[in-house]
């Protein structure tokens, strides 16, 4: 316990505040991830601000998704995966053994690459999270949460007349927005998005991007993307990963206009990747 407390103090001392002056929500210090023998993520240090969109870019297999999945400990489900170092949310170490991983995931929502609604009704999809966490005191309460979440996800007008239809019957873009509604129904602090638009057509992508832009006022959003245009469009800060290391992190305009690392330069101009 002493070690953890010391570490936490250390983390606070180093950088509780990001360079832009915003309070740091997620902080990683010397985070390493191993899949068995493979060293997938090497000593990542990053401060991610609250209320804003941070994009992770980089070529395939660079560790950006791995890092994303560390933030809500989704990597726990892979038995060979091992995480060292220190990742905190609001200065609380999320790998602290006393921390309940289920509560962590309620605080850190996630949207996946492929839309994965439950094969249940649209209503049940959104209501599932609030139900298991006891967020609704009555049926009316739950209805309120469902409609508010769907409205925030920009889906309400499209589905309000068929809430009891199956969520899998929606189009790909609608399914992904349903997944976002499901994630925000438990009112998380951080939303992780793992290439949320890679399975969508350009129109659906535009809708999801607009939605992300609206949500950033209330949430800390971290998005992994393969599309540099998307990163440029939706994010305020960008982090570039390459071969398991975090090469560079900074305001999006700076990364795309005048990156300080030559590898970043090569990647955004299309020479590597």
């Amino acid at each position, binding site marked *: 316990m002493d070690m953890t407390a010391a570490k936490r103090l250390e983390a606070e001392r180093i950088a509780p505040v990001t360079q832009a002056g915003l309070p740091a929500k997620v902080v990683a210090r010397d985070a390493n991830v191993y899949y068995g023998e493979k060293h997938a993520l090497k000593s990542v240090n990053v401060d991610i601000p609250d209320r804003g969109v941070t994009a992770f870019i980089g070529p395939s297999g660079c560790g950006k998704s791995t890092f994303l999945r560390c933030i809500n400990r989704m990597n726990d489900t892979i038995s060979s995966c091992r995480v060292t170092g220190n990742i905190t949310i609001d200065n609380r170490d999320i790998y602290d053994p006393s921390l309940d991983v289920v509560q962590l*995931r309620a605080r850190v929502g996630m949207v996946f690459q492929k839309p994965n609604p439950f094969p249940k009704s649209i209503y049940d999809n959104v209501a599932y999270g609030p139900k298991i966490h006891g967020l609704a005191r009555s049926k009316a309460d739950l209805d309120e949460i469902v409609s508010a979440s769907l409205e925030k996800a920009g889906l309400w007008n499209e589905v309000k007349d068929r809430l009891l239809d199956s969520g899998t019957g929606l189009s790909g873009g609608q399914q992904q927005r349903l997944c976002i509604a499901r994630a925000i129904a438990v009112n998380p602090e951080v939303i992780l998005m793992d290439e949320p638009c890679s399975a969508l057509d350009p129109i659906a992508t535009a809708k999801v991007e607009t939605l992300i832009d609206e949500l950033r006022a209330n949430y800390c959003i971290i998005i992994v993307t393969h599309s540099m245009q998307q990163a440029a469009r939706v994010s305020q800060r960008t982090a570039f990963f390459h071969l398991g290391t975090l090469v560079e992190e900074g305001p999006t305009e700076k990364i795309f206009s005048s990156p300080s690392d030559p590898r970043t330069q090569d990647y955004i101009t299309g020479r590597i990747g």
Partner: protein
Amino acid sequence: MTDLTATSVLPRRANFDSDEMVARVKRRYRSEWRFKALGGAALVLTAVFVIAVLSDIVIKGTPAFTQHSLMLDVPVRADVVDPKGTRNPEDLRSADYFALMREALATAIPGIEGRAEKKRLSGLLSSGAGNELRDRVLADPTIIGTTVKVPLLLSDDSDIYLKGKQTRVLTVPSRGTATPSGTTGEITVLTSANDFADDLVTVKKALAARIEDEKSRLAIAEGRGESQASEVANLKDEIAALSARAHQPGVEEVLDGKMPSLMVAINGGLVKLNRISASSATGTVYIPLKSADEAAPGAWSVVTYERPESNRKTTDIEAAFLEKLRADGKVENRFNTIFFTHGDSRDAELAGILGSLVGSILMLIVTLSLALPFGVLAAVYLEEFAPKNKLTNLIEININNLAAVPSIVFGLLGLAVFLNFFGLPRSAPLVGGLVLALLVLPTIIIAARASMKAVPPSIKEAALGVGASHQQAIFHHVLPLATPGIMTGTIIGMAHALGETAPLLMIGMLAFIVDVPQGFLDPATALPAQIYIWSDLPEQAFEAKTAAAIMILLGVLLLMNGLAIWLRSKFERRW
């Protein structure tokens, strides 16, 4: 990259017009055709076998679903049914209803005098012929003293005879006028035309066939040498006598039990012929003639029973009685309710499958209520929660191997553990169900694990992503989605259990049990065991019962598999 200089290093391009290529294409087509033809042939062969087996079973089994009875007016005599006059149900139950049936039958065929003949007549009835009347009297004692029309169940052999399974019966109308010499006893029938000539020829032919038989036996006896000398002499004498008879056409011939039986139906009576010549026949009257008057051509007939009397169960006199009853319209072929409402019996006509069907159902209830929860929970634990180490690996391998263990081994286990150690009763559905549960457990575990694996991991991730615990994710999302697959596996496992006989052998469920089991501890047998028991019995009627029971078993299995398919298609989800 499209440099001209690079062409030299590109791989050679195939020449599609070369002879070699044309031959290759032909060869490929031929091999494809061969594959299709072989597949088609395999399919046709399989279909032929399946159809052959099924049609054989259906053809053999269908007669068992009907049963012949005699519809007779039976006076319910108070002095037989209730001699004390108390109307006490116990007394009513134990009265001799069969005696009433015997009397009613004797009234139906009057004029049967001899003791042996009377015995033959009542022997047509099943030993349970009085049961129907007993049930009616018990239900309504006011019918005592009246005359009621009840079905009298016939014995299995009579039933088979009436179904035409014992011999072919040929009736040849007459050409001449016949004169019987009397109405009872030994009589001679003279005919004005040579009505018996054809039959005489047939008999002589049969004699010729027997000479050939005897000759081959003679050859064998001669081959054995001196020790068989007397036998050889006997056979030679016999052959000489037979050929003397065979080669004298037109001479009177004696009929015996090794030849087709001949009868003359005349003046409402029936005469079994013992000796025939072309224009006269002498025989014993089985059914008395109404008169000794002349019978006009066409008014009488010669009836041939093709199979010799010594080769069938129903003797000529019994056949005569049955034919008479049938001609009088007293015989009825009714749906065989006994088959569906009774347990086993030594009398084929009283044997039913209800006992074994109930036994099977009770066993399956035990099996299902044990194997399903244990199997599914074991599968959930192994698939989702168990740490992956050497111990769980060993358990997994053993479960997979358990599915391949011969079922008799499970029977031995049941005998050693449930009967000998725990002292549970023999032949009980509870023990059978326990043993079958062990048998289907691996099937259910494997099916449940496979269908849980088939649920996309994204569903579990989605649940975990909104903050569901591992257990909530499994029980709220993965397991419900795996349910159709689990149900299918379970039903197929149950069908497997239903058809299993070997383990039941060891725990005493392969037994002759008359009573329909009322509970899980009553002695019982199972459908496949019942089929095995019946198939082993010598009575001809059990052949049809066996096939009918197989039909029932196949029907139940088909129903269960159909249910599995229906569930799968109804609840199957696509992602």
